[in-house]
C-alpha cells in the first residue's frame, strides 16, 4: 500500500512534483494568512450578466496569456534547447495587426473578428518562421536569434499602429476579453482550456511530441532515424507564433485597445519561468505542457498573493526573484546530487541497522 503510493508519487507525478508543491505551499500560506482569500462570490457585472468573482478566479483568469504562451514556449524549449525572448514583442505586433485589420472594417461582427484574427495569426506565424529559420537553418542560439525581434518588435507594432494607441470598442471584443453573456466564467479561461485541448488533440493525432522530444534529447540519433530536425524546430517556432497571436488578441480584447509598450510587458521572462517551474529542462528534451501551464498559475498565484499582501505591482518582481532563486537552487544539479548522497547514506545506515538488528 505504502510502496504503491510511493510509486505513484515518484513515477506518476514526476516533473510535476515541484510546481504542485509550490501551488500547495502557496495555498496553505494563503489559508493561514487570510482564509477569505479563496472565497468565491457570484455577482452581476455592468451588462447584467451573472459572473463569478474572487481571487482564485482572477488568478486563473490573469494567467491566461501566460499559460498560452508557456504552452508554445515549452515546444520551442524542447526542440531547440533554448528560449524565445521575443514573445512579448511579437504579441504586440500580432495585437496591432488585429486592431489594424478590425479598424479597416466599418462594422465589427464575428466574421471580421475571425478575419482579423487569421490575419494577425499569419503575421505572428511569419515572425515565428523568421526566428525559426535563424535557429534551425543558421544554427544561431535561440536567445540571440530572438534578440533581434525583442529589440525591434514593439517598435514595429508602434509603426503598424501609426504612432498611436488605437482603441476598438465592440461587445464581441469585450466578450473575448472578459465575459460572454450567459457564461459566468471569464472567456480567457475558456480560451486556455480550448488551447490546451487543441494541444492535447495535436499530440494525440500527430506524432509531434515524440519527434520533438527525440530532436531535443539526441539530435544526432534523431537525424539517423530519418527525422527532419530542421523542420521540427521550425515547426515549434510556428506553433509558438499561433500561441503568441492568441495571447496578443486576449490582451487587446481585455483593454479594448492596443498599447505597444504595455501589452504583455515582460511576459517573455515570466513565460520562460513558467516553463522552468513546470519542471521542464530549459536545456531541451522531455517536456510536459501541463507542467508549464501549472507553472504559469504558480507565477500568477504568487503575484496575486503578493498583491493581496499590499505589495505594489512594481515591487512584486523583487519577491518573485527570491522565489525563483529558491526554486532553482532546490532543483540545481549540485543540490540534487548532495541530497541524493544524504538520502543514500541514510538508507544505507537504515539497512545496516536493520541488518544488525536481524543478526543480533
Amino acid at each position: 500500500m505504502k510502496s504503491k503510493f510511493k510509486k505513484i508519487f515518484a513515477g506518476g507525478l514526476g516533473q510535476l512534483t515541484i510546481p504542485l508543491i509550490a501551488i500547495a505551499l502557496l495555498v496553505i500560506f494563503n489559508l493561514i494568512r487570510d482564509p477569505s482569500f479563496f472565497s468565491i462570490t457570484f455577482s452581476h457585472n455592468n451588462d447584467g450578466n451573472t459572473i463569478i468573482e474572487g481571487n482564485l478566479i482572477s488568478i486563473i483568469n490573469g494567467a491566461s496569456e501566460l499559460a498560452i504562451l508557456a504552452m508554445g514556449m515549452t515546444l520551442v524549449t524542447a526542440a531547440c534547447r533554448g528560449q524565445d525572448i521575443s514573445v512579448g514583442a511579437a504579441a504586440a505586433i500580432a495585437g496591432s495587426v488585429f486592431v489594424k485589420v478590425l479598424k479597416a472594417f466599418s462594422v465589427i461582427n464575428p466574421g471580421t473578428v475571425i478575419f482579423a484574427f487569421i490575419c494577425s495569426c499569419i503575421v505572428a506565424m511569419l515572425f515565428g518562421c523568421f526566428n525559426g529559420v535563424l535557429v534551425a537553418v543558421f544554427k544561431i542560439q535561440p536567445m540571440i536569434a530572438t534578440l533581434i525581434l525583442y529589440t525591434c518588435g514593439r517598435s514595429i507594432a508602434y509603426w503598424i499602429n501609426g504612432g498611436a494607441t488605437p482603441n476598438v470598442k465592440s461587445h464581441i471584443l469585450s466578450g473575448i476579453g472578459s465575459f460572454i453573456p450567459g457564461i459566468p466564467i471569464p472567456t480567457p479561461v475558456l480560451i486556455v482550456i480550448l488551447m490546451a485541448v487543441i494541444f492535447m488533440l495535436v499530440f494525440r493525432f500527430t506524432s509531434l511530441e515524440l519527434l520533438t522530444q527525440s530532436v531535443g534529447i539526441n539530435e544526432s540519433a534523431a537525424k539517423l532515424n530519418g527525422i527532419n530536425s530542421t523542420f521540427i524546430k521550425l515547426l515549434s517556432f510556428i506553433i509558438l507564433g499561433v500561441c503568441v497571436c492568441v495571447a496578443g488578441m486576449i490582451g487587446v480584447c481585455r483593454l479594448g485597445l492596443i498599447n505597444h509598450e504595455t501589452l504583455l510587458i515582460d511576459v517573455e521572462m515570466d513565460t520562460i519561468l513558467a516553463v522552468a517551474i513546470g519542471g521542464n529542462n530549459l536545456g531541451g528534451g522531455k517536456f510536459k505542457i501541463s507542467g508549464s501551464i501549472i507553472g504559469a498559475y504558480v507565477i500568477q498565484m504568487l503575484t496575486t498573493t503578493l498583491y493581496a499582501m499590499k505589495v505594489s505591482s512594481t515591487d512584486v518582481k523583487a519577491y518573485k526573484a527570491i522565489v525563483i532563486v529558491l526554486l532553482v537552487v532546490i532543483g540545481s544539479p549540485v543540490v540534487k546530487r548532495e541530497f541524493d548522497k544524504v538520502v543514500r547514506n541514510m538508507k544505507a545506515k537504515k539497512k545496516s541497522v536493520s541488518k544488525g538488528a536481524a543478526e543480533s
Partner: protein
Amino acid sequence: MQTDPLLQMRHIVKIFPGVLALNGVDFTLRRGEIHALMGENGAGKSTLIKVLTGVYPSDGGEIKVDGQVISIKSPQDAQMHGISTVYQEITLCPNLTVAENMFIGREDSVWINRKDYEKRADEILSNLGIPARSTQELGNCSLAVQQMVAIARAVDMRCKVLILDEPTSSLDDKEVNMLFDLMRDLKSKGVGIIFVTHFLEQVYEVSDRITVLRNGELVGEYTVEELPQVELVSKMIGKELGELSSMNEPQDSEAEKKEVFYEAENLSSSDALPFDFKIRKGEVNGFTGLLGSGRSESVRAIFGADKVTGGKVKINGKNVTITKPIEAMRNGIGYLAEDRKRDGIIADLSVRENIILALQVMNGILRPISRSEAESYADEYIKMLNIKTASRETPVGSLSGGNQQKVILARWLLTHPEYLILDEPTRGIDVGTKLEIQKLVLKLAEDGVSVTFISSEIEEMLRTCSRLVVMRDRHIVGELKGSDLNQTKVMQTIAGGESKDEEQI
C-alpha cells in the same frame, strides 16, 4: 642507457559494475622506448590508461615509477609524477595562441609575459622540430601540429612517461611521419612513450615493444621482431572459436542465385572514399577491417547518414537516390549505428517510444501510432528479443548496454526492413546477448532480409557472414567468401603484407 623499468604496473584490477574491465594486468615501460599498447575494443587499453592517468581509481595492483610505489588519484597527481597524456581529441583551446596553450594554467604569475612565453615556446618548438609559430592561433594549425603542440606542452612539463592515445587517427601520411620523427626524438631523450593505435603498420614503424590485451587480460609482451603482423592480429582477436563456430553452413552457391537487392557503384560521402558494393536478398555480408579502416563510413554512406557526394545506387534493379536517412528507410534500409549512446538511443524516452521511433518517422508526423498499438508493438518485441526491462515505460537510458542495443534492434525490425545494416551491434554487451543477436541475424537472412554485419570480433563475423568485404586505410582491399572464410585468411587480408599489390582496387 639504463635498463631498469621507468614505469611498472603490477596486477592492475579494475571493476565496473558487473564487468571485470582489467583482470590483473601487468605493464612495463622502459626508459627511452616506444611501447605500443594493442587490443580491440573492450580489451581494456583505455581503462588501463585511465587508471594510469588517475581518471579511474584502480581496484587493485600497484604502480611504480622509477622503482617507487606511487598512488595516482587524479590527473594532476599523474602529471606531478611525470605522466602526461595526449588524447585523440585535442584538449587544448583552439581560440588561444600556440604559446598560450603551452603555458596557460602552469604559471603562478598573475601577468602573462607574452614575449617570454613566445620566446620559450619558439625554442621548444624548434628544438622538437614542430612546424608551428608560437604566435599562431591554435585553431589555425593543422590537427597534426595541434597534436604536437600538446606533446610539446607535456614535454616541457618534464614528463617521463608520455601516453599518446590514438594520436594518428586524424592525420595524413606526411603528418604521421612528422609525428613519428618527434616521437623518435623524444625517445632518444629518454622519455618512455606508450603508443595506442589501431594502425598496425604504424606500430611496426616506430615501436620497440608491443603489449597485447584482450578482454581485460594481458595476452603478452613482445618485442616487435618476435611478433609478425599476422600473429599480432591473431593475438588481438583471439583464436578460440566459440561453440557456435559451425553455425553458418556454406551456402554461397545458393545465395549466388538470389537476386541482388542493393547495388552501389562508386558511392562516396564526405567521410568515405568511393567504393562499389552489392548485396543479395537473404545474404549476410560483413565489412571487416580494424577501427578507422573506413568500414563504418562506408555503411553510413549506404544509409545516407553522411553527406553523399557521388555514386549510383540501385535497389531491386531500379535507380534510386539516397542522400538522407529517411530516403534509405523508405527504400527498406535500416541502420543500427555504431555509437549506441550518441547515435542510437534517445536516453530519456521510454522503451516503448524508442521502439516505435523509426516506424513512426516513416509513417509521417500526421499518422501517429496509437498508444495501444505502440504498447502491443513494444510488448511483442520486448518478448521476442527478450529485452530485460522493468516495464515498457522505463527510460531506455537506464537499461544495460545489451538491452539498449536490443531496443534499437527492435526499432529497426519493427520497420520490416529488406536490408538491415548492423554496425557493431555486439560491442560492449554480454556474451549471451551477443549470441542472441547473431542468431537473430541468421534468422532474418532465412526470411529473405539482406544483412550487413560489422564487428570487431572476427570469429563472430565468420559465424554469421557468407561474404566478407575487407577494408584497410579507407579502401576495400579484398572480398572473401566460401573456403576463404577462415581466421588466417581474414587476418592476412586485414594485416596486408605479402600480397599488397594485387589488392589494389
